[in-house]
């Protein structure tokens, strides 16, 4: 009975989705706001990566909200899983090969993450991706060395500081410019590391924030294993 109901619901949803998607042609060029961004991004922001320019500059306020959502998710997870008793992860090491491999790879993974978020305005990638890469490196260490600990206090400080940098970058636009998150620094020469004004600053802050948040989230989840 449950399956019949489910298939009926799926048929209704599928019918309406097909009839909507059928009106959207695939693979054709559209004359919309995307074309405006593609034509003017390098001129207006100095960032080579259009997606980064949209995420951080044109729709920077959205990104501030997105970072807040991620922060709330991490905080909510910590609040749900809060437990006075189980503070330690189970003490059990992985095999020697995994431990040595993790030890070799961990600094390289963190370096790659830092590279990805520092070059967010030049290459594919950015703060969220770089932060996620750093968190995977820390997860590798968590899995191979069960005694590997991250200081909760340091994580909270990194997170708060990064958030404050983002908001201050926004207010600097309000003070020296016209609007919140306005790009007040010079755009520089497109394609170089020191270009695109406040975009790299914000993306570096986002990278630190996301890395610290995801690390705390993984730590919270792993501590519940009994």
């Amino acid at each position: 009975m449950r399956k019949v109901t489910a298939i009926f619901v799926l048929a209704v949803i599928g019918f309406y989705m097909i009839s909507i998607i059928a009106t959207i042609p695939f693979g054709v060029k559209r004359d919309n706001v995307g074309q405006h961004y593609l034509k003017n991004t390098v001129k207006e922001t100095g960032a080579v990566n259009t997606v980064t320019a949209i995420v951080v500059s044109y729709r920077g306020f959205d990104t501030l909200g997105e970072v807040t959502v991620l922060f709330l998710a991490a905080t909510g997870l910590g609040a749900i899983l809060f437990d006075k008793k189980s503070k330690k992860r189970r003490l059990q090491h992985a095999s020697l090969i995994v431990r040595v491999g993790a030890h070799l790879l961990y600094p390289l993974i963190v370096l790659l993450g830092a590279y990805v978020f520092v070059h967010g305005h030049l290459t594919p990638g950015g703060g969220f991706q770089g932060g996620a890469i750093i968190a995977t490196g820390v997860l590798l260490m968590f899995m191979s060395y069960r005694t590997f600990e991250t200081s909760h206090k340091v994580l909270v400080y990194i997170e708060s500081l990064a958030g404050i940098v983002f908001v201050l970058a926004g207010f600097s636009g309000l003070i020296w410019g016209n609007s919140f998150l306005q790009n007040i620094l010079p755009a520089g020469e497109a394609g170089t590391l020191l270009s695109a004004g406040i975009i790299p600053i914000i993306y570096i802050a986002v990278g630190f924030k996301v890395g610290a948040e995801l690390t705390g989230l993984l730590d919270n989840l792993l501590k519940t294993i009994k």
Partner: protein
Amino acid sequence: MVYYVTALLLILIGIYAILTKKNIIKIVIGLSIVDSGVNLLLISIGYIKNGTAPIFSLKGLTPDQMVDPVPQALVLTAIVIGLGVTAVALSLVIRLYDHHKTLNINKIRKLKW
């Protein structure tokens, strides 16, 4: 076109898993399959035939041959939100398991339909 079909199939498979599965972790997996389907749908709407990534890193790239960057920026947001949703859902699952000692939603009272 195959991207639209795949995205639609992913969304429907995810909803089917949410509606019929009894293990609560499988329901969370269903949620994240729907998430991937929606992301794929948005990205493929922005696709242009033979388009390149919207990054002007090489000389000689013109805006005419690039895919739409707006859906990509939207999906970047959607992925992060999906991650947050999955993390919070899994933490709730952990708490439910602590309380009821089972993951079967039929055995957890007030959760069956």
